[in-house]
């Protein structure tokens, strides 16, 4: 175990003290991204005259692009360890999970590496989102007609 790993372990054990600090950092970073997203979407709506949903989609695309590029050049991992859930809960975390598993398994080849491991982390989100979405939609129709 080298020094860096040891420091990481120590940090992990001390994390109880940092609950509030971590939460506040996440609050500020997540909130900042949220307001940027709002400004970006408003700009797209006013300049491109597209529907609200599509404008949100374009903004999401831009956020995903930035997250993927930052992951590619190795910056995003450092940002995540610094700002934690401020970056994981927004869509950037979803893009980062796909991009980082692709990078990690690149050495195993195109099919058994990239193809098989792409959704290692993001798969849970898609799986439970789909199941919950369909079940709640069916419930809504059954209950309210």
């Amino acid at each position, binding site marked *: 175990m080298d020094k860096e790993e040891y420091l990481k372990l120590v940090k992990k054990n001390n994390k109880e003290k940092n609950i509030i600090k971590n939460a506040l950092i996440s609050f500020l970073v997540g909130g900042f991204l949220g307001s940027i997203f*709002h400004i970006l979407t408003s700009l797209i709506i006013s300049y491109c005259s597209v529907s609200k949903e599509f404008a949100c989609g374009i903004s999401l695309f831009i956020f995903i692009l930035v997250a993927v590029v930052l992951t590619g050049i190795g910056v995003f991992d450092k940002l995540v360890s610094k700002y934690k859930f401020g970056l994981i809960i*927004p869509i950037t975390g979803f893009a980062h999970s796909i991009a980082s598993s692709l990078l*990690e398994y690149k050495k195993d080849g195109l099919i058994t590496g990239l193809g098989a491991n792409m959704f290692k982390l993001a798969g849970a989100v898609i799986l439970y989102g789909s199941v919950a979405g369909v079940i709640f939609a069916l419930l809504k129709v059954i209950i309210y007609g």
Partner: protein
Amino acid sequence: MKIFSSFILVGLICFIASIIYDTTKWTSGHITSLFVVVGAFLGFIGIYDYLIEKCGYGLSLPITSFGNQLYKSALNGIHSNGFFGAFKDLYVTTSLGISSAIILSFLMSLVCKPKD
């Protein structure tokens, strides 16, 4: 003003996630999955779209929005095509996010090398 309410709401979601992460043994995968289901539930009780309308587009950014969109497109599918419509239209609105994440990541992984 909506910029400010976007800030508060998105920040609050990240705040809750961070508290859950630090006080339980869950990984970030557990938390994002939970939040997707919570988003679908908020859509189910009709709060999520109301919040986006009142508090700005910022709420389309967190992963909870993903659940809400999946729920909404499944519901629209049921209304237009019956039971099988839910399966036909499930990914209609989230398609942009999923496919751009997949394709951009793939292109990136061809160009970049993993850092250790």
